[in-house]
């Protein structure tokens, strides 16, 4: 079974995000890391290939600056190879263009039995790319998968819903988006990290994939204004001296909640 995982390399989520004032896009000029949301998909793919007894896990990613650090993390976990679409022309691409680029990268790898993505990225969280890719690839999809097994050539998925979950079956080839917590991502071993350095990453441009127009030219939207929201003021902050709970009781009293 061959599985392709979409991985996004994002700015360190621990440092505050910022918009580039000249383009109003998210600043992505620092070191980029593997989006933690994608580590679940990588782990799921490795487990499914392992259970199938053969095949490999490949990666597709899109980044403006040739960055591979995040992809190397996924390769160190056990993925075999990857395609990175890196092209300055991609700056400003909307979600639909991103889906077109990633779907073309999947095709460049010769397709797969299963494509896995996170439900949404941690930095942009548009949340539409996986399902857009499924439509572009002409395959069925199950979004928000929280448990996935393959049985007699078809997927059996527990799909999270607002109220609980659904049991869904889906023939292969297919695309799924997986929730965080679906599996426990492994830590790359030292051996894995060393091996990852020499694993092949095929770096291509949008033009190589035949996707045009991209970036600002292809975007179906443009940002017209960026404004600060009305800030919520901080109130009273006190250190607990053992009696701070009485402050909460008094506040609840004042609000007539008790």
């Amino acid at each position, binding site marked *: 079974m061959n599985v392709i995982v979409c991985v996004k390399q994002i700015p360190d989520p621990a440092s505050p995000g910022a918009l580039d004032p000249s383009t109003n896009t998210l600043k992505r000029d620092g070191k980029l890391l593997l989006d933690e949301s994608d580590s679940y998909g990588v782990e799921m793919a490795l487990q499914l290939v392992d259970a199938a007894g053969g095949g490999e896990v490949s990666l597709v990613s899109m980044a403006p600056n040739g960055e591979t650090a995040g992809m190397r993390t996924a390769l160190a976990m056990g993925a075999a190879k990857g395609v990175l679409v890196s092209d300055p022309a991609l700056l400003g691409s909307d979600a*639909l263009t991103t889906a077109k680029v990633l779907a073309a990268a999947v095709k460049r790898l010769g397709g797969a039995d299963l494509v896995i993505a996170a439900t949404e990225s941690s930095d942009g969280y548009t949340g*539409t790319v996986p*399902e857009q890719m499924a439509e572009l690839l*002409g395959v069925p999809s199950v979004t928000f998968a929280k448990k996935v097994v393959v049985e007699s050539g078809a997927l059996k998925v527990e799909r999270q819903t607002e109220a609980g979950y659904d049991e*869904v079956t*889906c023939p292969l080839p297919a695309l799924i988006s997986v929730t965080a*917590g679906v599996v426990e991502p492994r830590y790359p071993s030292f051996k894995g990290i060393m091996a990852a350095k020499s694993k092949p990453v095929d770096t291509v441009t949008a033009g190589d994939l035949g996707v045009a127009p991209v970036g600002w030219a292809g975007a179906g939207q443009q940002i017209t204004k960026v404004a600060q929201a009305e800030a919520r003021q901080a109130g009273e*902050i*006190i250190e607990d001296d053992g009696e701070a709970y009485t402050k909460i009781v008094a506040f609840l009293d004042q609000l007539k909640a008790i």
Partner: protein
Amino acid sequence: MAINNIWVFAQAADDAPTTFTLELLAKARTLGGTVSAFVGGDASALAAALGDHGASKVYATGALGGALPGVAVAGAMKAIIDGGDVPDLIMFPQTYEGRDVMSRLSVKLDRTVITNNVDLVVEGDQITVTTPVFGGNTLVSTTFNGGVPFIASFRPKSFSAEAVGGAAASIVGAPVPDLGATGGATVHATHVEETTGPKLDEANIVVSGGRGLGEAAKYELIEQLAKLLKGAPGASRAIVDAGWVPYSYQVGQTGKVVKPSIYIAAGISGATQHMVGMKGAKNIIAINKDKEAPIFGIADLGIVGDVHKVLPKLIEALQARS
């Protein structure tokens, strides 16, 4: 031209339109055009309520027979559009099904989608939507390039639902066309995770716990406090991902958006992801041992302290009064 023909993707629960659907209808009908609802499934039980909230027509696919709504409803929408009824704007709720339908439709129409919006303004034939980023500190306004239909999704509680007393919407069939290979996913069983007490996104008081609780067993403190205050228990994404509580408890960007009159955050640092889901609360009480935690930046009352010490005392004090 102006924005004359507006569709709202309508969802139902227990044979009634969801509140979220009614919120979008309320906004849609202020835009000056005709409003149609689009239902994946049978609409006979919904037409009266949809009409009462401003929809004059409801497109209905009829029973989906276990198909996941995303690809099926998008196919039905595309067929109606190809048939000549081209909407200027399609509004989606930012829900699982809403996301799936608009994503599939986006490709079928080769039109972009703008998600996670909280407002929309029409100026002539142009639409501007507003999206909060960085936990809601920054508001980004975006317009569409190119022609209609414009496709946008909105966060819950962005608008207020209000009945206007319209007649029942007329039902128009919108059959699902042959979906080929893309229609292969089928739902076999549905499981509802029961919760007691008020619903999280409707409760007047919400008490949420986070990683600061230390271990799953300590979530009981959150449930106890919520019960005493007749509120709903909630959770940060961190402890949902860790498997302490089901996803249906999650407050935040990828969970429920809540706007209670009182929100108590215990052991929650206030990641962007969480703040987006609760900063609309009227009053916020935060308990966290890290005085630098971002949650204190928006709390009306902040207690810098250990939740394991503060919560038991608070619970005891409230029990003594009841």
